[in-house]
């Protein structure tokens, strides 16, 4: 259970060196992405000007305040509250994000599924779990919103954050088939019969 400090971006070798139950803290650039962002990028053929190669994306749509472009807020936006949404809805975008844009790390909550797991193994990537709902804390790890793209989709724009000490985050899916969610789901399903018996349910 090692801890990794990553100054973004990272290489394939760095992604493959990480295992489930390790922890990771990110520094530097982090991109924010969400349902509509990816629907427009992969279904509507829109492109981003950002270079996501080797980078991490976090499943988010932040609360921001428009303050106009200044040195302290180069994007024109000031962060108010930035947290993480459920990843499950965005399962089908993991592979294209990795294949077409070179993304190495997906950060979200609740985990992803088999297709993402295979993409992590095939291409070299990991999934990091943020504690969902702990957004007030997560916001303190974000220094600035540096740039924004596809902003007509606001709040589901493509956000470029500058982060410092973003973590520690738990590695819950790795490039070697490790997946904490499937382990927990399996043991929870194994407990089902016992729980139903305790409720006096006759047969199911």
């Amino acid at each position, binding site marked *: 259970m090692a801890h990794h400090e990553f100054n973004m971006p990272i290489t394939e070798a760095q992604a493959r060196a990480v295992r489930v139950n390790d922890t990771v803290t990110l520094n530097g650039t982090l991109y924010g992405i969400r349902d*509509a962002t990816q629907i427009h990028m992969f279904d509507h053929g829109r492109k981003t000007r950002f270079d996501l190669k080797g980078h991490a994306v976090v499943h*988010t*749509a*932040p*609360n*921001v*305040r*428009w303050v106009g472009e200044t040195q302290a807020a180069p994007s024109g936006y000031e962060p*108010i*509250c*930035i*947290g*993480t*949404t*459920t990843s*499950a*809805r965005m399962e089908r975008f993991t592979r294209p994000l990795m294949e077409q844009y070179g993304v190495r790390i997906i950060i979200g*909550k*609740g*985990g992803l599924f088999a297709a993402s797991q295979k993409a992590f193994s095939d291409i070299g990537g990991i999934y990091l*779990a943020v*504690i*969902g*709902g*702990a*957004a*007030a*804390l997560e*916001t*303190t790890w974000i220094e600035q919103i540096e740039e924004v793209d596809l902003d007509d989709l*606001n*709040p589901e724009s493509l956000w470029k954050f500058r982060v410092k000490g973003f973590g520690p985050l*738990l590695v*819950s899916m790795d490039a070697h088939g490790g997946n*904490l*969610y499937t*382990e*927990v*789901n399996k*043991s*929870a*399903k194994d*407990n*089902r019969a*016992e*729980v*139903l018996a*305790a*409720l*006096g*349910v*006759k047969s*199911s």
Partner: protein
Amino acid sequence: MQIDLQQVEEASKEIYIRALKLLPPDIKEGFKRLDATETHPTGKAILGTMIRNIKVAEDNTNLLCQDTGIPIYNVEIGTGVAVDGYALKQAIIKGCTRATQEHPLRSSVVHPTTRKNDHTSCGRHVPVINIDFSNKNNELSIEMIPKGSGSEYNSWLKMALPADGVDVIKTFVIDCVLEAGGKTCPPTIVGVGVGGTADLCVHLSKVAATRALGSQCADPEGAQLEKALSAVVNKLGVGPQGLGGDSTAFAVHVETAATHITLNPVAVNMQCHSARRARATFTPAGLSYGF
């Protein structure tokens, strides 16, 4: 008692923001209870982070969670209260819009097909405004619930058969908790609606999911069912964020309604650990805020 609609507008704005920033005391107590009994190291660490987040939100007067939710306003009008119902709804919508624009808050509300966001947290039939009546003399209360999407995604209705009895209800609830896994942001409040029509059953599941911890179903049969389900749900081992542990749910809450002789409906709706709510109460003594 005459209700001042300008005050309703201000209060509707205020309770949206308050709900997003201050977790009710019963939920904080719920965290303490789960933290004291959690045995799984990952689960324990995650609960610790969640508890720390409550403090950070209070210290920085920031939102607990970025999800501003679908705004729900539950209005309860007591006896002796004089208010123009249509104007009351308009005042609530205006307060909700002002909270979004003046704080500002992320508007999480879009048209269902065009996906257009008006950046007001409002749209067709949103905010959801539920109006009910009580026997409390000279009192009008408005409860605000920002319902997050992670937990709302995990909503189910089963129109089961009378021959399936109560067993199908219990089994359905447990299977919903398993299917939700970490997607609902556990520990959750599992809300269960039993009986009624399809729409009433789903509505009751939301009422159950958003009820204060420690409260009981007014129907003794429902109270017994929620007690039985609460006693075993944490044996599943889903744990905080679905990463394993004892703290899958704060509680299971049940609400019941009479149903048709041919029906046996059961619905499940969940509330995430950021189980936010706020309340404004209007009495002759004035306007007060609470949970």
